[in-house]
């Protein structure tokens, strides 16, 4: 056990050292931050899709309150940092629009089908969940496909980018953000059953660590924690290798995206944290004395549905200017109105997804001859 854990520690260090030697100190820091995200999310069981389910089905607010605590703690330092260094740091600010709202709604629905959000899909895959791995392949394809149609969805109608600090000033934006988080938390706690209202110590620690890592991400990368951009870029790289000409597309022709497309993945900040996150989840899973049970066997149509749900997750996250991380966590914690609208639309979608899940994910029935009841 000890030798295995020392090996896992060495693997983590080797990954950071490799990133340093291939792409410099910033890449190494970002891989280390991604590793931290993976270790905390998997090791301390901090999730997004699960708590959104249990708050509805079990009247259990503990996970959702922990999310709100993490977002609030991040906002308390991120908003002053953004105000102090506007030329070096940028928030996760995006416009609210019809396509964005529809994308968030569909994302919320799909994430309950595969029980994995943006970060959750990476965590599930890295920690050895076959549903997560199949969904990840779909997520990469879907988020790339979403880049090809983003101009169509934004063309349906969008408001200008609105931030709470733009509306109420830097101090006012932070107060509004914390007050709104407090209101949502209060509503969730009031609805919860006794004993399921406040997070256990494990989730307090996880929320604090996630907030610290998100702030480090902002300081090192210059932009908040994200997931979807990196996965869309991976899909674009694979598509180009397959002969696709993306330079002619509106999304990949924009200077920032064209630069990322021609440069190494190891220069893309979101890709670096994504890589670290997957490896971190793997290390956390292997660290345990006995890994969780393998994924339940599903029927073939159900596996196809998981793949399709992964594609839908990626596509809708691109429509919505981010997933639970880029839009919900980072959008709200950096004052973007679109983060709040994303939260509302995705929560309604999540509610419907909970009812859809048992209809589409059908466990395989084993025969007696196969020896499994």
């Amino acid at each position, binding site marked *: 056990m000890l030798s295995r854990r020392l090996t896992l520690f060495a693997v983590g260090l080797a990954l950071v050292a490799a990133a340093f030697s291939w792409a410099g100190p910033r890449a190494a820091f970002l891989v280390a931050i991604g590793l931290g995200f993976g270790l905390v999310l998997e090791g301390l069981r901090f999730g997004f899709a699960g708590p959104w389910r249990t708050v509805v089905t079990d009247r259990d607010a503990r996970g959702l309150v922990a999310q709100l605590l993490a977002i609030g703690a991040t906002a308390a330092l991120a908003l002053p940092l953004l105000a102090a260094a506007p030329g070096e740091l940028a928030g996760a600010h995006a416009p609210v629009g019809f396509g964005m709202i529809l994308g968030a709604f569909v994302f919320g629905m799909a994430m309950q089908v595969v029980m994995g959000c943006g970060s959750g899909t990476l965590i599930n*895959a890295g920690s050895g969940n076959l549903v997560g791995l199949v969904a990840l392949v779909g997520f990469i394809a879907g988020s790339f496909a979403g880049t090809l149609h983003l101009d169509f969805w934004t063309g349906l109608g969008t408001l200008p980018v609105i931030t709470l600090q733009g509306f109420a000033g830097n101090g006012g934006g932070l107060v509004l953000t914390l007050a709104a988080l407090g209101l949502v938390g209060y509503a969730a706690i009031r609805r919860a059953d006794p004993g399921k209202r406040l997070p256990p110590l494990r989730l307090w620690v996880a929320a604090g660590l996630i907030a610290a890592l998100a702030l480090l991400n902002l300081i*090192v990368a210059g932009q908040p924690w994200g997931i979807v*951009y990196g996965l869309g870029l991976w899909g674009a790289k694979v598509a180009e290798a397959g002969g696709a000409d993306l330079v002619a597309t509106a999304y990949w022709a924009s200077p920032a*995206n064209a630069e990322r497309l021609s440069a190494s993945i190891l220069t893309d*900040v979101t890709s670096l944290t994504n890589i670290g996150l997957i490896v971190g989840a793997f290390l956390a899973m292997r660290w345990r004395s006995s890994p969780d049970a393998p994924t339940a066997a599903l029927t073939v149509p159900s596996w196809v549905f998981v793949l399709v749900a992964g594609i839908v997750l990626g596509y809708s996250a691109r429509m919505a*200017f981010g*997933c639970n991380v880029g839009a919900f966590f*980072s959008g709200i914690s950096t004052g973007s109105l679109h983060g709040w609208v994303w939260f509302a639309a995705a929560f309604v979608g999540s509610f419907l997804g909970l009812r859809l899940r048992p209809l589409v994910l059908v466990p395989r029935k084993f025969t007696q001859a196969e020896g499994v009841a």
Partner: protein
Amino acid sequence: MSVQASSSRPLVGLAALVLVAAIISLDALRSEPVDPFAVPPPAALGSGQAPAGAHCSAG
């Protein structure tokens, strides 16, 4: 019709790492190599440089 999915978690996790390694390798064959003399400063804060703008929230 159904498929057995009782692969162990370590094996599936390893498959996820292989997927990531395959994407990085494919990219390394096709993309411009990183210039070690042009890498960005360790942190954006205090660097005097604007962020790249390639983020989920950007169009």
